[in-house]
């Protein structure tokens, strides 16, 4: 997204401005953190004033929100969803569980550290983070987008083998296509 002069092209600037102010969120309610999403979206905290709104399907979404612990079974679905999203796409890890496993760090059934499996743009820590924290996480993401630094979709495709090998360590019965278009 940056040219050789270390600054953005005007087209990218305009595009990033629009991307920043229009984030369609696919809230993947994996863990208990999902309960904070309704509070963030509705009248008390009103995330829509930042242009953040819910998307119904991965095809329409820009942001994948992983809200909390991720069981090994759900990981497969998350990968499918992530790969179906169209670039530029962003991931927000929500809650301590996505950072390092949180209180489920020694569970046999959840993953520790979301960014081993899909690239994460912003982590919001807390167990569980309040809506203020969620919105501040989104604002951080907006800053990254504006600076042209949020291009993890490309990174994922480039390092697909690395991510795949990590994913396959968890998902033993891998019965998916090579890439879930």
């Amino acid at each position: 997204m940056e040219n050789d002069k270390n600054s953005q092209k005007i087209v990218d600037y305009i595009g990033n401005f629009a991307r920043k102010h229009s984030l369609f969120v696919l809230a993947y309610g994996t863990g208990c953190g999902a309960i904070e999403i309704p509070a963030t979206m509705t009248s008390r905290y009103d995330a829509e004033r930042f242009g953040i709104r819910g998307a119904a399907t991965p095809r329409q979404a820009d942001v994948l929100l992983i809200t909390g612990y991720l069981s090994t079974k759900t990981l497969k679905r998350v990968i499918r969803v992530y790969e179906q999203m169209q670039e530029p796409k962003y991931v927000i890890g929500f809650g301590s569980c996505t950072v390092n496993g949180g209180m489920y760090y020694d569970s046999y059934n959840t993953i520790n550290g979301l960014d081993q499996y899909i690239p994460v743009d912003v982590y919001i820590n807390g167990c569980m983070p309040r809506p203020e924290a969620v919105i501040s996480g989104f604002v951080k993401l907006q800053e990254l987008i504006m600076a042209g630094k949020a291009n993890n979709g490309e990174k994922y495709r480039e390092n697909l083998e690395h991510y795949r090998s990590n994913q396959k360590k968890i998902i033993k019965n891998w019965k998916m296509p090579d890439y879930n278009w």
Partner: protein
Amino acid sequence: MEDLGLKIFGAILTTIMAFTVGMTYGGIVRKLTARVQNRYGPPVYQNFLDLLKLQSKKTNIAHGFMGHMAPVWIIIAAVTVLMFIPILNGNLWFPNLSFHGDLIFLLYMMVFGSLGMALGAGQTGNPNSAIGVTRGLSQMVGYEIPFVLALVALMIQFQTTSVQDLTQVQHETGVWNAFANPFAFLAALLASLGMFRYSPFDIVGAPAELASGPVSEFGGKYLGTMMSGGAVFAFIKLTLYVHLFFGGAGNPDDSGILATLAGIGILLVKTFLLYMIPVFYGWINPRYRTEQAIRYFWGWPTALGIVGVLWAVFFN
């Protein structure tokens, strides 16, 4: 040659205006809805940002030829229909093709966009899309009947099928068709609730239930193009209603700059007020099921439509 140039210029101007107005109305509705829900709400220009973002997505996926064509089809249908709608009554700036189309043709053309959407959604193979399409077509069967009855009533009453003539009649007599045939007007108004697909008739999109229905596999540029088409279609329906029932806008005897601007102003006020009716109705209603929606349209609206036709036959 000069004439042709003016016509092309008018057509481009019309399209830009329809698009801008449709998108802005959508933004205003989002803002108002937020205020009703005690939220601050997105800015009024949010829809333009969304569109810009969708158009600047870097990867776009289509599921085959019709999936690729559906958004194009929708926008072609939208612009085509727009050309046959009189924007301002008799105005020389926006003549387009309004003298050559009549209501029956418009009725046919207006479902063209939905047809494209149905074909495109069918090819994606997503079950949600298929359910959305069947729901959309069922709902269309529901509201088209009172709508057509209302139009037939107008056609009988004034012995013409031309939108232009119907507007002209209102201009000459000074009586809006909404009052000349109140039953037809009510039927058409109730049908418009289904046409704009706000609650309780948002059974096609139904985000929580169907994952946005027919568009569930469309993202990026495809979704953006569909959004623009939808905005133009909203403007088309509103303008058509204003011309059919609310006396239209514009002065056929004066095409000066000032008169044109005044005409556009009147058109905007009238369309906006009309647009608020389905929106207001939506704020206070939850979603219907498909059969409830159809039963709704085949109940009072259809009865009113029939009364409207009888009124047109016997009292005029």
